[in-house]
């Protein structure tokens, strides 16, 4: 059993050298949200690397503590940014998760939620059905009744809180609103394609719509193939590489027939993951080359707008805003200056840097559901930093962050509007054209 684990761990690691790169200098410790919560070395990047290393060498058995710590990690990758030695922590923890994911070591709650969410995101049809049901639940009064009657608390005490964590389902999904091809009224400067995402599609249809509008205002013709699917990051980050690869191939196929310069993504997690398709499919003879091309064309909407800054004129905006760096932007894709350049370019906008803007908000996929209490402590710290800026708007470029921050604003009574930067950009662009 144990040596199986060992072999499995090796088989999912990129190579053995990743294991030996950490020189245990500790420079990553204070950037780690989980270490900051517990002050236990085993909840720190350095400690986890030691544990993974020991497991790979067969020195320790993979037991409850190991599984717990691997799942307790937010996979926010703040430690990768902090690590001067270039340790690829993310690939190690994701490899470790492959081993613990389905074993008895995973809590029942975690396994059930994971199974359900994975099943749902992987199948577009299921996602839409589930979202319809959720929409009905959120809007028909059933949710209110359940909450008021406290039935939900009886069934499962945490569920009532978790229930609120789910963002509101959009009335119409963006895939229903956005045509296969959107033409621009302006001169065509770029041929673009867009990835609508899974959650973005059903929960944040308006943001997808705003993205289309911004692209169109910037002179893009936008293609939206209906065959596109979820990017696969959720299964990928939770150790289910097989599903992730399947989804990746579907997306590659969906966009292959199109003629486009770049593929725009507006959720940092999806963008980060699709930029890594080349790596994900590196050993697949029929897809490795296609994946390279696909990944090289992925462009975050903020990268795009930043490149266009010379070409566009923003109108004045008088909002007082602050910016939250999504982990998959700042730590994974190293997108950090782009949003700031854009915000600086909007006249009169009152931009306030929050303290610890790159500190995770605690959303992290399904983390806020399976580690609700820890996630809330992390969120509280974030909301506190937002509050201190006095801003009335907080920007976040990831669906998870958006939902989490919205929940935080309600829970911790912070009077702040949570919006995606693209919606603000649209506002600044539209006025000029009016």
């Amino acid at each position, binding site marked *: 059993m144990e040596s199986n684990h060992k072999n499995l761990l090796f088989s999912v690691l990129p190579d053995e050298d990743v294991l030996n790169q950490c020189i245990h200098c500790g*420079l990553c410790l204070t950037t780690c949200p989980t270490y900051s919560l517990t002050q236990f070395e085993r909840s720190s990047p350095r400690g986890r690397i030691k544990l993974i290393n020991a497991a790979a060498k067969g020195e320790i058995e993979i037991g409850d503590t190991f599984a717990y710590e691997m799942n307790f990690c937010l996979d926010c990758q703040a430690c990768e940014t902090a690590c001067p030695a270039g340790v690829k922590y993310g690939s190690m923890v994701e490899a470790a998760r492959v081993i613990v994911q389905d074993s008895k070591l995973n809590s029942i709650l975690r396994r059930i939620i994971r199974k359900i969410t994975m099943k749902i995101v992987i199948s577009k049809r299921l996602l839409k059905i589930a979202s319809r049901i959720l929409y009905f639940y959120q809007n028909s009064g059933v949710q209110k009744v359940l909450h008021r009657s406290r039935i939900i608390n009886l069934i499962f005490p945490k569920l009532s809180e978790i229930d609120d964590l789910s963002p509101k389902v959009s009335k119409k999904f963006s895939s229903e609103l956005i045509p296969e091809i959107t033409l621009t009224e302006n001169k065509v400067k770029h041929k673009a394609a867009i990835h609508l995402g899974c959650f973005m599609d059903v929960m944040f249809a308006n943001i997808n719509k705003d993205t289309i509008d911004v692209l169109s205002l910037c002179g893009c013709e936008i293609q939206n193939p209906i065959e596109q699917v979820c990017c696969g990051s959720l299964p990928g980050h939770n150790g289910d590489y097989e599903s992730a690869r399947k989804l990746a191939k579907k997306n590659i196929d969906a966009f292959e027939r199109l003629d486009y310069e770049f593929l725009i993504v507006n959720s940092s997690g999806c963008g980060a993951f699709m930029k890594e398709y080349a790596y994900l499919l590196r050993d697949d003879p029929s897809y490795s080359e296609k994946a390279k091309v696909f990944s090289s064309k992925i462009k975050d909407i903020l990268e795009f707008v930043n490149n266009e800054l010379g070409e566009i004129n923003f109108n004045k905006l008088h909002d007082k805003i602050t910016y939250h760096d999504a982990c998959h932007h700042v730590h994974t894709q190293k997108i950090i200056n782009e949003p700031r350049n854009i915000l600086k370019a909007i006249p009169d906008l009152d931009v306030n840097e929050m303290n610890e803007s790159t500190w995770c908000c605690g959303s992290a996929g399904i983390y806020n559901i399976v580690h609700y209490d820890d996630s809330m402590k992390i969120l509280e710290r974030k909301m506190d930093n937002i509050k201190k800026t006095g801003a009335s708007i907080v920007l976040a470029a990831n669906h998870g962050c958006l939902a989490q921050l919205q929940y935080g604003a309600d829970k911790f009574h912070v009077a702040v509007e949570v919006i995606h930067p693209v919606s603000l950009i649209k506002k600044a662009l539209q006025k000029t054209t009016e």
Partner: protein
Amino acid sequence: MENSVKEKIKRIVGERNYSDSYEDRLCYSYDATALLHQLPEAVTFPENEEQISSLVKLANETKFNIVPRGSGTGLSGGSIPVENSIVIVMTRWNKILEVDTRNLTATVQPGVITANLQSEVEKIGLFYPPDPGSMNVCTIGGNVANNAGGLRALKYGVTKNYVLGTEMILPNGDLLKTGGKNVKDVAGYNLRDFVVGSEGTLGIITKILLKLIPLPSESITILAYFDRLHDSAESVSEIIAAKILPCMMEFLDNTTINCVEDFTHVGLPRQSEAVLLIEIDGRGSIVNEDAETVKNILLKNHASFIRVADSINEALLLKTARRSAFSALARRRPTTILEDATVPRSELPIIIEKVTEAGKKFNVTFGNFGHAGDGNIHPTCLTDERDMAEINKAHKAFDFIFNEAIKLGGTITGEHGTGLAKKQFLEKVAGIPGVEMMKKIKQSIDENNILNPGKIFSISPRCEGSLPFRREQIKDFQN
């Protein structure tokens, strides 16, 4: 360790502050020192002085060892467990208890992160200068125990220059208080300075009173590029000789420049043989005048380019880049053995050449960087611990460097402490009477040798520090 003893320890600190799981023992088996590690028997997080005192007393009664630990960024093995030991982790003692703006002091618990204290006091115009490369992570307690230096030591001195007082649990469980807010105090021996640099061998520090100074208002940060290593070292000696005291003069060689640039992308010159990062701070026009003099000296010594940071932010980026040097070198090879040789500043050009010579002679790769203004360099051997032959060569190269440093009137460690890693060289620097005196001090304070035994020197030389408490070991020894 017997289970009954573990039970007693658990009772003292409480269940949630105790662990002897294999995972936790593993996670406290190392610090930042290369090659060394050992499992403790248990890990504890005591909450107050009474608990620490009880642990120490129990250790004397039942014969186990205690290893105090901060953030575990030490580079001489100070917080690596010894045999039959428990670790006392102090990171949760992280409160700044008082900032006294009338006496310019701060009272802190030992687990406060150095950079956190700095940013707190800087908010009110005060300054705590010691800034080890690890300042975002290391604890004040660890700094005091190791008498840590930093980039600004050139002008502002090291940790000991800022410690006004300490509280420490002694190996018999008593609480020792030293020093106080008085600027002058000559009542009896200066016990405070025994505490500073004691590396966790004389007691467990529980409270620290620190001196603060006014925050300098101006600073200029300069990065000078050199095509020859020697020129950079000569510049340093000449700047010192010109009676100018920059607050830092840091040096990076070509290997280090490239590794740091790979990590930070701050635009370091990849082709240069060396760079010097110099900061001049103070008040008023003097800062500018000194900066001009420094630039002239750099040019005279063939600096190929001089970059002046044009914003506080750029200056910060350059300094942060320098702080990452040690860890960034690990991008090359998985094991980085770093040393801490220090020579009088006038001898800097010679020791830098000796490092290059050592690399060639023993066929190992060095990255070299350090606090050039202090004559304190960090030759770092880039190697792989799985390759024993190469590790042996590295050790030989370091022997060579240490001997050369001592010949130049230098020392084996400027700031990282002796710990485990450098104790074999201690006698060469401190001399036999010096080491004998240290041992006597240790023995008179820690009769049973329970606190961090085997660090700095061995009282019982036959096994690394820890006395053979267990029966099977005693038998071994009799054979």
